[in-house]
Structures are given as structure tokens and as C-alpha cells.
């Protein structure tokens, strides 16, 4: 039962990872990579490592995603600014 759950979550992770580099919009791939971290943290919890799961959930899926979003804001500002004209 637990093995089945882990396998399903692994397949979900692979789907999210493929989506992250196939999609056109950058914001979608940032959110997909956050989803991967969230699933990994659930797997860590199932494998009896609650402290690692806590770190992964807050660093991987919250803080890293936010930092990527700030970087995206900066990139968009550069592109709209007319530097590439």
C-alpha cells in the first residue's frame, strides 16, 4: 500500500518535471518545480524522516519558488525595458 503511494508520487514527480521543461511560460515551470519539492517532502515523511520533510517543504517549495519568482520579475522588467530592441 505504502509502496503503491510512493510509486504514484514518483510518477507524478516525473510528469511535473517533464512539464517544467516542456512548457512555454516560465512561471508554469517555476510552479511545477515547486510541486516536485512538495511531493518529495511527502515521500520523506512516509519514509520516516519528518525533519528532512520539514526542511524540504519550506526551503524547496516555499523559499526557492519565491526567489525564482523575484528573478522572473527582474527578467520581465529587463525584457519590457526595450534593451533588446
Amino acid at each position, binding site marked *: 500500500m505504502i509502496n503503491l503511494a510512493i510509486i504514484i508520487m514518483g510518477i507524478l514527480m516525473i510528469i511535473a518535471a517533464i512539464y517544467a*521543461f516542456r512548457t512555454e511560460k516560465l512561471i508554469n515551470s517555476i510552479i511545477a518545480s515547486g510541486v516536485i519539492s512538495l511531493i518529495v517532502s511527502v515521500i520523506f515523511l512516509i519514509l520516516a524522516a519528518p*525533519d528532512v520533510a*520539514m526542511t524540504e517543504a519550506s526551503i524547496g517549495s516555499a*523559499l526557492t519558488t519565491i526567489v525564482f519568482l523575484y528573478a522572473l*520579475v527582474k527578467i520581465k*522588467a*529587463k525584457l*519590457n*525595458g526595450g534593451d533588446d530592441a
Partner: protein
Amino acid sequence: MLRTVLIYVVIIALAMIFIPIARENMEKQDLSDLSKEYVKNSIDKLETQNVVTSVVVTYRGLDTLGEVTVLFLATSGVGFLINRRKKRKSKIRQASEILNTGSFFIFPIIVLFGVYVFVHGHLTPGGGFQGGVLIASAFVLMMLVNNNSDLNHLVLESIEAISGFSYVIIAALGLILLGSFLDPTFLPMGKLGMLFSAGAIPLIYSFVGLKVGAELTNIIDSLRNESTESEEVTK
């Protein structure tokens, strides 16, 4: 087309590496000699319920000190590279009413949970690093709500400096009083499972938690100021 196929081939080849690891992965039925010693000593000598904490803070305490130093260097690097000018009002859209109300409700709960995690590091799963990261994520939520808010970097940096310094002082106290660096048994040990037990381990974890929380908040705030500022310049 060829490029996409090549990418998939590389990914599948990388996945093949993990197959033998997965096949040999068995759940261990008994502890090795070293683990037995750690488990026995952490209950008998250190009075620490959470064996992971007793390993991380005492037996491998020097590694933890190294990790904290690495984080400190990362924060100094970010602060050095990103110059903090006077911030003007950014043109980013204000947060919606739902996010605003919800996050003011949830912010104290997250901070309280973070403090609980690092104060109870010797009893329940988690510890200084996890608690600090939780506190930092609460502050990031407030940054999302309030785009123009200004954090007081002097306070953050003093919290970081004082707690880092106290960590080293506690480590050195172990060396002076008991003759081994990072020995937490110079304080009264208390009873197994009580909040005030396990010598200096809760103290060390509280300082690590404060330090990590202040550092991560500082890094994210610096990156945020950088991103909104550049938008201001180009528009």
C-alpha cells in the same frame, strides 16, 4: 526534434543509474555497532529523546557549526553583491484582500510553530534549522502581502551576529569546563522527556534557529529589493 530526443535519452540514462541502488535498497532490520552506541548514549548520558538531535548537535556538532558558517558566508555574499540603495515605491500591484486578511491571521501561528520546533528540538522531530526556516517563510509571506514594507536590516544582522557568537561561546564553554569542544553536558541534565533537559542542547538549537531565520529573511529581502528596484529603473 533531435534535440528533444537527445534530452529524453540523457534523462533516461540518468534514471538508469538509480536502478541498481533501488534494487539493493533493503530495510535494515538491526542497528550497526556505531548506531547502537549512539542510541544508548543519547538516552543514558545525554537524556535526549530525539536521537537525531543528539547526533547532530553533539557527536557531529562540528559539522553543524560548519553548516552555520556556510550560511553566514552566503548571507554576507548576497549582502555584499546587492547594494542597498534607498528604495522607492515600486509599481507592483498590491496584494488582494483575501491574501491580506488570511496572512495576517496565519503569520503568528507559523512563527509560533517555528519557535516550538526549535525549542523542542531535543524532544520532537525537527530542530534549529527547521524552526528557523519556518520563521523565515512566515516573514516571506508578510513580504508578499506588503510590497513596500521595509525590514530593519540592523535588527536582523544583530540577531544573527549575537546568536552565532553565543553558539561559539557555548561550544567553547564545553571545552573549558569539560575538556571537549561542543560538549553540552555542563548544564544540569534534567529528566528524559522534559523541556528543560539535555544540558545545553535546547540553548544551542534556539540560537541556531534564530540565526537561520534571520539569515534567510535577510537574503530574501535583499533579493526582493533588487528585483523591484530594477523594475523601477527601467519603467
